[in-house]
């Protein structure tokens, strides 16, 4: 019988570390998820942080979670070459139990300034993703996975995501990170039931679950409609804990459940206490539902055979650039709509004709927020 570990997303952030510390002292943090590519702004990384990661790594309880890999970009940029090189250094220095990235692509020309956006789930994107995952896995030499994305423009892209991620990771015998707050956003934003979405996921491939919080936005376009956003800046809502309760027993190969929150939402002692009580609540749910049998390894025979040339698709890259530019440079929702319909995204696999107005508005808001960097 394999244990399921309750852990936290732990990065070098004062507020976050202050929130986590009492849990560390009480030996409650069973695993750590570290975003190994987010320290690019830090000139100094303290030895104790390295030591902390190494202790969890040696125990098989450290997982690496990339933020800036943008594995589904049409082109493979020099920044992504650097990202892979950085990953190869990280896996030499730390013992990761697995490595993951997000589904989607990052807008923006600057590698660290852009928004994570959804993209068509077609054969081109599938092959591109498989090629990049194989490269990641050849370097990481451990299980590799992809996290579901909250941002979706229409119901069909929500409905398709589970199946598509399954197809994608199957090619590397990989796993899925199921972010339940992302799922919660989709359930609310598209008014669908949990069963309608969860049953589309190959749940035997879920190795990690994320719990986090977010925020509400009032749509200015669809009056009276609220949009749930995956902002990671608040405690987890009760509904997400209920989703956790329902989901754990459906995932026979689950190994980690991670609580994620960004430091800027943890500036007060009260917020830090909410973080701690949310973590304990999550841990209590997890500890009641352990796996009934051994879990699979998610580790294929390595290395994968890959071409020297990274797979790219110029047409997809062009379309991603067009979408990024429209969302980042438009001054109004009306301008976004006009530009989209006059672009080559019109009547393409992007299916912009089906995009819901409030979700276009949300994608525009996200792109505006991220275009100057995420702090």
């Amino acid at each position, binding site marked *: 019988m394999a244990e399921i570990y309750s852990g936290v997303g732990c990065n*070098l*952030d*004062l507020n976050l*570390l*202050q929130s986590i*510390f009492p849990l*560390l*002292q009480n*030996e409650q*943090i*069973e*695993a750590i998820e570290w975003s*190994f590519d987010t*320290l*690019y*702004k*830090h*000139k*100094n*990384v*303290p*030895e*104790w*942080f*390295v*030591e*902390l*990661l190494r*202790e*969890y790594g040696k*125990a098989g*309880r450290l997982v690496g979670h990339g933020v800036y890999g943008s594995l589904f970009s049409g082109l493979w940029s020099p920044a992504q070459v*650097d*990202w892979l*090189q*950085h990953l190869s*250094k990280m896996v030499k*220095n*730390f013992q990761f139990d697995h490595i993951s990235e997000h589904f989607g692509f990052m807008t923006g020309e600057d590698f*660290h300034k852009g928004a994570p956006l959804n993209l068509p789930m077609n054969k081109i994107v599938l092959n591109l993703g498989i090629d990049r995952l194989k490269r990641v896995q050849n370097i990481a030499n451990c299980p590799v996975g992809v996290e579901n994305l909250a941002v979706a423009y229409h119901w069909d892209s929500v409905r398709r995501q589970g199946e598509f991620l399954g197809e994608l990771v199957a090619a590397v015998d990989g796993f899925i990170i199921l972010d339940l707050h992302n799922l919660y956003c989709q359930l609310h934003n598209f008014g669908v039931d949990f069963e309608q979405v969860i049953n589309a996921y190959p749940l035997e491939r879920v190795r990690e679950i994320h719990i986090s919080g977010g925020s509400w936005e009032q749509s200015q376009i669809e009056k009276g409609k609220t949009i749930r956003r995956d902002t990671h800046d608040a405690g987890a809502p009760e509904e997400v804990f209920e989703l956790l309760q329902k989901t754990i027993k459906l995932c026979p190969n689950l190994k980690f459940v991670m609580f994620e929150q960004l430091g800027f939402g943890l500036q007060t002692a009260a917020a830090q206490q909410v973080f701690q009580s949310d973590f304990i609540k999550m841990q209590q749910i997890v500890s009641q539902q352990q796996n009934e049998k051994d879990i699979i390894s998610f580790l294929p025979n390595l290395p994968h055979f890959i071409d020297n040339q990274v797979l790219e698709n110029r047409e997809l890259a062009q379309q991603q650039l067009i979408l990024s530019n429209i969302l980042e440079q438009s001054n109004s929702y009306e301008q976004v709509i006009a530009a989209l319909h006059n672009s080559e995204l019109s009547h393409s696999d992007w299916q912009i004709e089906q995009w819901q107005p409030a979700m276009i508005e949300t994608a525009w808001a996200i792109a505006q927020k991220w275009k100057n960097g995420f702090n």
Partner: protein
Amino acid sequence: MKISKNLLAVIALTLGTSAVLTSCQKDEVITVTTDEKGNETVTEGEQNPYDDCPACGMG
């Protein structure tokens, strides 16, 4: 999971003094650009984000 008392003590001390980002000194990457009027702009830090440090590449 239990972690060493020494490590906990160091973390506690560091968090208590708010000096989270100290140690592991590394030369900064500094770029100086000059415009046509001769004004200099100094940019530091992000040009080479991934280097040799075990955690961030910078140490």
